[in-house]
């Protein structure tokens, strides 16, 4: 319980330990802690940024997908339209071709009929002549008769 030199000894060691703590303990630890704090904050920031980027990318992807769908739908529609157009064209073409064929066939038929008529006419003339010759058994001027018969045949 006596106050003695211990007081001074303790005072000196007190100051020494404060100096030691400041010099060799505090600075190192507090620096490391602050650096770590900064690192963690940076990491959190980066994570935030990444998640924001991800969100943005997802949005973009969704948009792109929507666009692609729309494009595809448009393409399909166009294709359908084109197909029906092609079918229509083909139909038209076929109809026209058919008509043409029909017309050609009719023309040919007409021609055939005319030729048959001609042939028939000539055959009839010959036949008539032959018949008349047989009937008359006379020497009739062949050329006059023929003209007569031809006129007759033309009137048929």
């Amino acid at each position, binding site marked *: 319980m*006596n106050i003695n030199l211990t007081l001074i000894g303790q*005072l000196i060691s007190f100051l020494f330990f404060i100096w030691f703590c400041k010099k060799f303990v*505090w600075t190192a630890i507090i620096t490391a802690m602050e650096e770590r704090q900064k690192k963690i904050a940076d990491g959190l920031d980066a994570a935030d940024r990444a998640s924001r980027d991800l969100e943005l990318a997802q949005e973009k992807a969704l948009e792109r997908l929507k666009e692609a769908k729309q494009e595809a739908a448009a393409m399909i529609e166009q294709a359908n339209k084109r197909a029906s157009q092609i079918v229509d064209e083909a139909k038209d073409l076929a109809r026209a071709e058919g008509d043409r064929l029909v017309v050609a066939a009719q023309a040919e038929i007409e021609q055939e009929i005319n030729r048959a008529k001609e042939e028939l006419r000539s055959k009839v003339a010959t036949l008539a002549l032959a018949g008349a010759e047989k009937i008359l058994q006379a020497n009739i001027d062949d050329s006059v008769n023929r003209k007569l018969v031809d006129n007759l045949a033309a009137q048929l």
Partner: protein
Amino acid sequence: MAGDTQQTGSEYIQHHLTNLTFGHTDHGWGFAHNAQEAAEMGFMAVNVDSLGWSIGLGLVFALLFRCAAKRATTGVPTGFQNFVEMMVEFVDGTVKDSFHGRNPWIAPMALTIFVWVFLMNLMDLIPVDVVPYLMSFAGVHFQKIVPSTDPNITLGMALGVFGMILYYSIKVKGIGGFVGELTLQPFAAKNPIIQAFFVPINLALELVGLLAKPFSLGLRLFGNMYAGEMIFILIAMMYGGGLILGAFGGVLQLGWAIFHILIITLQAFIFMVLTVVYLSMAHEDH
């Protein structure tokens, strides 16, 4: 009881409260053989046990924390590293709360005080007879292992704090500012004659306030730890009083020790916070 054969209760207590003092006796330099001799040594003596344990515990603190500081990295801290960083963060937070100036010495000083005083107080939890008994085999008669129950130790630290208060008061405010703070308040007057009359009153009041800081700081810690130690000694006396009283003493010692864990932490914390507050006041320029 501490190796001696027959003691009365008061002798036992007296024995436990005597420091191992080294100084100049009538027979030359040596250890005091009793409290009387220690008192006669006067100021030129050293309480070897208090100072030894104090410096030893200070070295424990310094080396442990130095070890942690060496391994301090920005990576993930583990184990003891974590504990040290928690302490540092706690002290740093406390200092930032109550100290508003800029001084790189305050926080490490607060850490030193907190951990060191805590370690010194912690010695109180070692049963009072163990170390003195072991020491008696080595021929050492007295051993007080709790440095903070020695007023030399607590007042020594308080004196250091007082020195810092004076140093920073003068450094921040200048000698004129510091003297002004001591003499021109709390009573102030516009009339210089009345002011001159107030100066001695102010000086007396402020000096009392200033000197009360280190004394209250040192004596608070000393008083609390001394009282705690005394109760441990009184409880330890019950061990000599038979089986039932001894068992009761054991229960009491356990209870007091558990309660004392709170006290030693609290006292270390109070010493630290008051030091920071006093230095904060020293930094404030009115």
